[in-house]
C-alpha cells in the first residue's frame, strides 16, 4: 500500500483541523440540546402529540414536491460554464510556456461556448420570466 501513497499530507493538516473542528461543533450542536432536553424537560410522547401540525391542517401530500424543469435548465447551463472555467485553470498555468497554439486553442474553445451563450441569450433561456 505505501507505494501508491506519495503526497505530503502535512500540507493538508490545517484543512484537516478545520474539518475536525467543524465536525466537532456540528456534532455538539446536535447532541448537546438533546442531552440538555433529556435532563431538563419531560419526555412523554404520545400519538397525538407526535402527529404533524401545520396551522391546523394535516399534511396531506408527499413532501417530495415536483420541481419545474426550468431548474434543470439552469443547473445544466451552470455545469457547462463550470466545466469551461475548469478547463481555463490548467490553461492559465501553462499558456505562457506553451505559445500561441495553446492560446488559439483556448480562444476557439471559448468561441464555441460563446456561440452557446449567445444562443441561450437569444432564445431567452437565461430569463426566468
Amino acid at each position, binding site marked *: *500500500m*505505501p*507505494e*501508491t*501513497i*506519495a*503526497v*505530503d*499530507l*502535512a500540507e*493538508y493538516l490545517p484543512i484537516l483541523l478545520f474539518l475536525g473542528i467543524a465536525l466537532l461543533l456540528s456534532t455538539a450542536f446536535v447532541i448537546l440540546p438533546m442531552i440538555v432536553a433529556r435532563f431538563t424537560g419531560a419526555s412523554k410522547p404520545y400519538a397525538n402529540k407526535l402527529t404533524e401540525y401545520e396551522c391546523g391542517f394535516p399534511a396531506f401530500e408527499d413532501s*417530495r*414536491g*415536483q*420541481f*419545474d*424543469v*426550468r*431548474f*434543470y*435548465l439552469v*443547473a*445544466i*447551463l*451552470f*455545469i*457547462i460554464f*463550470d*466545466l*469551461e472555467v*475548469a*478547463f481555463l*485553470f*490548467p*490553461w492559465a*498555468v*501553462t*499558456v505562457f*510556456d*506553451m505559445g500561441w*497554439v*495553446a492560446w488559439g*486553442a*483556448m480562444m*476557439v*474553445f471559448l468561441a*464555441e*461556448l460563446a*456561440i*452557446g451563450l449567445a*444562443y*441561450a441569450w437569444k*432564445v*431567452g*433561456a437565461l*430569463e426566468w*420570466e
Partner: protein
Amino acid sequence: MGARNRREPCRRCALPLSRSRFLQGSQDNVIQAFAFYLFATIVIASGALTIVSRNPVHSVLWLILAFFNAAGLMLLIGAEFIAMLLVIVYVGAVAVLFLFVVMMLDIDFAELRAGFTRYLPFGLLIAVVLLCEMIFAVGVWNFADIGPDTRMGTIDPDMPNIEAIGRALYDRYLLVFEGAGIVLLVAMVGAIVLTHRERGGVRPQNISKQIKRRPEDATRNTQPEVGKGVEL
C-alpha cells in the same frame, strides 16, 4: 526502495519520491495508509448505499459522499487539481443536477423497485464484465511491468499536477479539447431545445424599454378649467 533515486517517479503512481514523505518515517506512512483505507472504505460503502437506499434523494446524498471521498483519494495520490475538480464539478454541479432530475420525475419509486429482481441478472452480467476488464487491466499492467516513463503524457515528475495536465491537454490532446468544447455546445443547445418553452401571458421586464422611457412620454401637463375634467 530507498536505494532508488528520489527524483525517479514512484513506480505505481508516477509521482516523484522526493514529494513522498514516507521515506522520512513510518509514522506518516501509517497515517497515509489509514487515510487511504478510510477514504476507500467510505467510497465503497456509500456507493453500495447509493444503490440500495430506497429513497432516491438519499441515493443522491450518498453519491455526494462518495464523490467527496473519491476526491480525498485523489489528494492522496497527488492529483490535487483533479480532487478539486471532483468537488467543484461533481459535488457542486452534477450532484445538484441529479437532485433536480430526481425531484422532477413523477415516478412511483416503490413500483420502480419492484423490477429489481427482474433486472438483477442483467446488472450482475454488466458488473462481471466490468470486473473482468479491471482485472485484465491491472493484471496486464503488473505482468508487463510497465513503468510510468513509458506512459503517454508523462513529462516531468516534479511538475505540479495542474501544469502537467495543461501541458498534455493543450498540446498533445488539442483536438480532443476542442471536441470537448463542441460536446459542451451541443449539450447546451440540446438542453435548451428540450426544456425551454415560451410561456404565454407573462410580461417580462424589458430593461432597455424602461431606460428609454422619458418623463415626456409618461406625463402630461394640463390646465383644466374650473368645473371641467381632464380627458385621459
